[in-house]
């Protein structure tokens, strides 16, 4: 289990794509969560990705808040490539293994 705060990110549409490794033994889940701070307001998206496949989730983060992108693999040694974009512009990308959470502080442009 890896929980990593990746820093601040602008507001807009946050999308995350996970490309599961072909060698993974079972399906993986990919989720995206957003909550407005202060509340209220939240949005979530989730999908399941089979080995060798890829999936994308999206949440709209229109205001200051917290965004969490998470990959849950069935087994701790399963891996894949996670790419996070804001308004279709890549913000972070990397190979992840096991359950991984990347969080962001969504901040409005000043």
């Amino acid at each position: 289990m890896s929980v990593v705060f990746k820093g601040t990110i602008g507001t807009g549409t946050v999308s995350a794509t996970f490309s599961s490794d072909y060698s993974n033994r079972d399906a993986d889940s990919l989720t995206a969560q957003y909550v407005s701070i202060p509340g209220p307001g939240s949005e979530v998206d989730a999908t399941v990705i089979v080995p060798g496949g890829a999936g994308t989730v999206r949440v709209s983060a229109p205001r200051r808040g917290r965004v969490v992108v998470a990959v849950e693999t069935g087994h701790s040694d399963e891996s894949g490539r996670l790419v996070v974009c804001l308004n279709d512009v890549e913000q972070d990308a990397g190979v992840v293994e096991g359950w991984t959470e990347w969080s962001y502080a969504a901040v409005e442009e000043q």
Partner: protein
Amino acid sequence: MTSRLPVALVTVAALLVSSHAAAQPPQTTERGQQCLAALAALVPERANGANDERDPCFALANQLFDLSMGSAEKRAEASMTGADVARRGIAAGLAGTVAQSSAVPAVMPAGVAAGTIAAVGTNGGQDALAAISINPAVWFIADTATRALAKASRVADVTLLIPVSGITMTPSDEAPEAKSLRYFGARVRLNFHGLSAGDAVWTTVRNELRRDIERQGQSVEAIERVLTTTSDVTACATALHDGPSAEVEEACGASVDLRVDELGRQRLRNALAQARRLADAKYFGLDLRFDSGDPTLGAVADSRGTYLFAGLAMGRRFGGATDAAPSPNSTGVQLRLGVRHAKLDGVAAADFAVDAGAGLEFVRSVGDDEVTVTAGVEGRWSRDAEALAERLQTNMAVARLSLSLPLTAGHAVSVSTSLPLSGDVSPTMSVSFNWALLLPGKRQ
């Protein structure tokens, strides 16, 4: 008029300031610097990085929450027991051959490629058969596949079947130059149900995700509140990171409940696991087979011909876990129904037969792999060819039993046997070695 202008400008400026203040919590530059310093002290590799200066105390609050969350999840991970139901073991398809390695063959396609070598014994002797399954989509789609393409990549695979103990027939006295393949088979598996997990499961997942992120938001907000009011940001942040609650209250001037809702996280984890399991636990698809030559590998005389089969197959696994407790055991049902067209060499008329099977599977997860026992009944019936029933292998029913044991990750050995219940068919026994991951792939 001129005297009113400065007043208007001041009013507009005041409005701008107040609207900005509404969007951002009141935070002096000095406080922001203190938060940046605390952030750098807490996570040195973050110093001067990742645009934290855009809202330093908010970034620090998120960082503190994630450190707390990471510790809680590590504890939860350490206490987790049991295993998810493993994905159905996917072997190259020997279905329909005398070396069939499961009681009722499934139509789950291989991820990239899979291979099987089977030794089989029948009334006609012993033989060996090889099968290689290739997922054609995976070879043609890029790593940046869209979701639609990713689904398509799991839809189909193509299997080639050849005997490996003697590929060609011995030339006969009548036609010494003729050397034809003893047997050749091809199979296409199409699975239309790979990614569906059911609306109810997704509703649960989304509800749990929403509850989870709203709780996270409340915690981050509470942390930020004390960070913006405390007299010593670094001391408060340090106490929030690893100090007991009394220390937090002393350093921050207020108490903050940083406890992660572990029960809620467990519910979320279980809901996600359930969605993953259901995506892997069922299939519904098309099974297409073409066989040329003698599919009985000599068990039945004069059964050379061409055979075409088209059928539907479905399967579903149950159990494996509940919301409360994961379990390594699961059971499943497998069904198939189709029509076979057969044309024997030297026989003018073709034969149509109904081909059906039903079976149960019992699965026990062992670490990351699974032991599978399948038992079932298969049969084939035709009204038109009573006299050719033995050559066509129709009007018969067989009971099948199969045991699959994992060898290493992605590799398994299967022992299968079939016993005739009715009709003139040979009993069989086969031992198969399955490579479910012929070409494992890692993305970089």
